[in-house]
């Protein structure tokens, strides 16, 4: 058992304990380590000013890479086992890195407050690409807000920056001895207390389950992309935090019997790579969803366990026969349970989980050849915005004459009720019919009648109804006309 979180920060070994370990990484860097280059603006993972690079050598994987994350909404404790690099760590002696040089020369910084975040996000991008085209650059920078430049000079900087061997942070910081120490230490569980909260990271699932049963009301801390926000905005950290980051089996994506089984520690970035072939539409959607910083940290299980009615992956999981897999202790033995999606959501932010249950996996169907699946999301801003309405529609069809007869229909929406919902009535109305524009119109009207969304700051209930209807109509058009 360790009482510290072990990290390598800009190549320097740090054991972080107690109160310090349960600070947000960004606050710790700024106030405790004195690295004030990292800026905190929104403290909710929406602006990217706090971007740092993280490389997490995880048990079996031998290719580790630096990826951008938001330091404002993750505790130092969760960074246990990581290499971290901040803006202070990328200059090589007196020489600016290629990204720094380009940002400077292309007038990519004005007030400078967002600049370290952009520099780090671009540095992360150049760890994966020797150079960037505009589209790739923008995709890496979706999670960084700038209020001064209008982004154009930053894109120019991104286009002119070329990776150089001397400045590769992987080359500079992923030292063998350090990495093997990080991996070796992953075998030890971590227990950190700050006087109020306890952070426990067990090395095995069994330990985790015992902790859960002994500490009802515990909270699993995944990426903390939501928990961190709540803490920053005034809610104290929960009393008992359980981190699964040392349990290597939870980093796996398994494919069996046309089902995809995703471990609780699988990030959305990793998931996108893994499901590109089996679920291409879901992979495409994951591309559009959230920022790279969030996707490099947040997990699919977290998106579900958060139980929000507008979790962006939920409509997909609803139509893909999603299930969560949970473990708990019953009579001293580990008990496993599966809960399928419609049953999982009891109400607003309420899940059908026992107080001591831990979600270990989520599973869903591969998208098969005869299924037509589309996922949609509407938000005020196209990228990195919480959806007003989202939808996933899946039809299983067989050809009949020139048309397509619907064998099975599954329609799911987020943002139209207190929980993500399937629409059985509309599904029934499609079943066994041949899709044509008249049917699309009828079903869309039925959708309008069935759902009862609320008005909030993202849109009125009427707008949400119109959106739900129009998204289905769009789907219908796309199915009909390809």
């Amino acid at each position, binding site marked *: 058992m360790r009482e510290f979180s072990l990290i390598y920060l800009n190549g320097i070994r740090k054991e972080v304990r107690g109160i310090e370990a349960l600070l947000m990484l960004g606050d710790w860097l*700024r106030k405790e380590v*004195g690295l*004030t*280059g*990292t*800026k905190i603006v*929104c*403290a*909710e993972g*929406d602006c990217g*000013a706090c971007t740092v690079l993280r490389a997490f050598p995880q048990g079996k994987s031998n290719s580790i890479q630096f990826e951008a994350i938001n330091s404002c909404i993750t505790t130092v404790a969760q960074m246990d086992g990581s290499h971290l690099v*901040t*803006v*202070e760590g990328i*200059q090589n002696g007196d020489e*600016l890195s290629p990204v*720094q*040089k380009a*940002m*400077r*020369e*292309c*007038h990519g*910084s*004005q*007030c*400078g*407050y967002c*600049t*370290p975040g952009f*520099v780090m996000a671009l540095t992360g991008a150049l760890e994966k690409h020797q150079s960037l085209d505009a589209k790739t650059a*923008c995709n890496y920078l*979706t999670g960084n*807000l*700038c*209020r*001064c*430049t*209008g*982004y*154009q*000079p930053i*894109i120019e900087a991104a286009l002119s920056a070329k990776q150089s061997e001397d400045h590769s942070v992987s080359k500079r910081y992923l030292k063998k001895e350090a990495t093997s120490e990080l991996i070796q230490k992953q075998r030890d569980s971590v227990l950190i207390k700050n006087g109020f909260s306890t952070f426990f990271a067990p090395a095995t699932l069994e330990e985790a389950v015992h902790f859960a049963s002994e500490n009802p009301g515990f909270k699993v801390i995944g990426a903390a992309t939501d928990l961190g926000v709540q803490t*920053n905005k*005034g809610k104290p950290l929960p009393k008992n935090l359980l981190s699964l980051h040392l349990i290597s089996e939870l980093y796996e994506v398994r494919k069996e019997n046309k089902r995809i089984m995703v471990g609780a520690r699988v990030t959305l970035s990793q998931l996108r790579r893994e499901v590109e072939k089996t679920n291409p539409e879901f992979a495409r959607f994951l591309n559009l969803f959230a920022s790279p910083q969030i996707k490099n940290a947040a997990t699919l299980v977290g998106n579900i366990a958060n139980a929000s009615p507008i979790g962006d992956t939920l409509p997909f999981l609803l139509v893909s026969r999603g299930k969560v897999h949970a473990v708990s202790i019953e009579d001293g033995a580990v008990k496993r349970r599966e809960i399928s999606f419609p049953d999982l959501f009891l109400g607003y932010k309420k899940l059908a989980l026992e107080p001591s249950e831990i979600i270990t996996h989520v599973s869903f169907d591969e998208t098969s050849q005869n299924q037509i699946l589309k996922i949609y999301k*509407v938000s*005020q*801003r196209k990228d*990195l*915005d*919480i959806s*007003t309405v989202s939808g996933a529609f899946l039809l299983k069809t067989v050809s009949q004459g020139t048309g397509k007869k619907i064998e099975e229909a599954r329609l799911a929406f987020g943002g139209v009720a207190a929980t993500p919902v399937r629409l059985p009535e509309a599904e029934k109305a499609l079943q066994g019919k041949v899709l044509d524009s008249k049917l699309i119109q009828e079903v869309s009207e039925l959708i*309008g009648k069935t759902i009862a969304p609320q008005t909030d*700051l993202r*849109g009125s209930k009427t*707008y949400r109804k*119109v*959106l739900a209807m*129009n*998204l289905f109509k769009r789907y219908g058009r796309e199915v009909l006309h390809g």
Partner: protein
Amino acid sequence: MADDLKGLPNIASDPHDSSLSHVTGRSEYIDDRPLLKREILCGLVYSPYARAKLKKLDFSESLRIPGVVGVVTANDVSTNMWGTIFQDQPVLASTEVQYAGEVVAVLGAESPEALRAGLSHVTVEWEKLPAILSVDEAIAKKSFIGEERTISRGDVVEALKKSPKKLAGIVKIQGADHFYLESQAAVVYPKEDGQLEVHSSTQHPTETQHVVAKACGVPFKDVVCIAKRLGGGFGGKESQAAPIAAFAALMAKKMGRPARLALSKDDDMVITGKRNPFQIFYEVGFNPDGKIVALDAKLFSDGGAYADLSTSIMERAMLHSDNAYFISNMRVSGQVCRTNYHPHTAFRGFGGPKGVALIESILEDIARVTGKDALDIRKLNCYKPGEDITHYGQKVENNLLPGLFEKLEIDSGYRRRREEIKAWNQKVIKDGGNPRGLSLTAVKFGISFTTRFLNQGNALVIIHTDGSVQVSTGAVEMGQGVNSRIASIVAEEFGLPISSIRMMPTSTEKNANTSPTAASSGTDINGAAAQKACLEIKRRLAALALRLKEIPKEKWPSKTAGLGTAPEIEIAKDLETAHSQVSFENGKVVLKNTAFALPFAELVREAYLNRISLSEYGHYRIPNLGFDKLKGKGQAFLYYTQGVAASEVEIDRDTGEVKVKRVDILMDLGRPINYGLDVGQVTGGFIQGMGWVTTENLVYNQDGYLLSHSPSTYKIPSIQDIPRVFNANLVHNEGNTVNVKSTKAVGEPPLLLCLSVWTAIRDAIMSCRGNEIVPMEIPATSERVLRALAPEEFQDL
């Protein structure tokens, strides 16, 4: 004209003077200052209600929490009233609050955790009172700030009566949050004898100094306010930084310990005022060809609970309701409304964007009525020789507008794209699809504060004996590059490389009685003041150089001053004439038409040893200004910054989401001092404005409390939102000789070109709605756009 400026020789494009520290993370902002051992962290207690009586405010529980050290309330404030124009706002409210977010107390603690706990244990009881939460309500109740003002020319009533065509309507414009990345912040160090050293993220160190001094009850001389750099300002830190600094100062003074207040983004957005919302009622008369003959407009703005800068903002809106267009009969009146929202304030463009929105929207509507292209309507009405006097009586000199329209029309392929879009939308009407719109709008932005006395600046230039130079001015660096531009001016005057110039933090102990860095004026007034100071020093150095040439080197001060073996050199008689015979270039001081040249640093040393001052204080005032606010007539501006932009948008037919496909901008910035910095202002200002007219939606609850108070709910443009094609070019214009280095101010004007996105959205909607006039509120959110495009879909739901 016609030339693009890009690639012209002799236009510098040096990196921003802070760029090195920006990209390495070493730039220091307020909250990056190291915490001192006994420093207090401050947090604010504010009202959740638009208007309420403060029934109870009790800190006894908070103060029992370990680490919570003190509290400041209205009782601790010496002069508890401030305001830039009208002193109508308490620093800390005492018995009643007028807006949700109004601060009643400052709590101090020794750690963030203690502060958080302390704030959650304050006992506050409120009694809600009726509040005014809309402009309509304020008008009905005659709840106003200041008097109604009118600017008028011709006989509008008569002209409207005779006008062959008329339109009337309402333009509704919402506010916007500044969303500077660095939220409001200040650190205050108490010094001996009651002095206070204030480090503030402020655009107006002088006002911050004054507000702090009055709140703390000390003379101005005992407060020094320093602003090294700001992580963005955009007008939001012009007036509203002052109370933030006062909160920290009151705590520092009361506790005798350093105190820091760095707002969270959420608190900042709830507490501070926004761009003023406007509601404009208008009637316009025009000829069948689209020529406007009369415009009668009544502007109402939402000033929020206190006056702040709203009356000045209204004035600028009225002065910009003509924009680039000559309107022979025009009457524009303006009235600020008092509501129960945060006091709204300056935001890039001030009132300008609102006046311009009105006229650009009207021109778009006239195009619908006449069946002509909106660009032709604009060109027809554009200021041109013979039609170049504004409604307030100022002549539009150096008018490049007609040429800018012509050039961008060609450069952007406007006519061809118009035809393509017409055909596209015909198809959309027939077969469905996403409507497209195209619009080309202009800006003519008046440069100068409309309040005459603000048009002054001062600068301190100090040359050290190694020949390096420090410059201090009243200008605040907030990203716009004002320090880089001033450094360029000074470097050019002395013939030195820019690396020899160090711009010092803006501080009221070096530059007092300064104007805010606002109204795009930073470089103009402070750069001109610095230039004046340089010229004075150069006169002295030139006179000395002239005399040195006549003296054998062994008699020079460097050889004689130490022992006093030669008399001091007298330069008085050459002071008036010498500088015309001397040039400062490439680090040398050269006597023209002679072989005599001295390295700058060497001459500087000789000057020091000869007891010649190497420092100078320059004061500059913009000449020839004379605008009578009560009559609404006169020379309001020194010159106009002009530009045009063409924007093309596509609307998602199913969702109302808007995509800006292409933007072409062409601006006249005179002779830029720094090309790269200027273009950065253009792209940045445009995109900032684009957010205001599209996705940035301020949503309040029924208590007037802002719900969209963080980036998860308040959506400024992201990198994915910028136009797929984005061209920003400058034209070549050396004619603005009235301004320092013939340059033109750039900070605000490009923002106003964002209205082309808004009018393009209207174009798209109206093109697909049989060319009927469809109003559109700012911002054109997806929901508003879809409602305007397909109102029938919203019925019976």
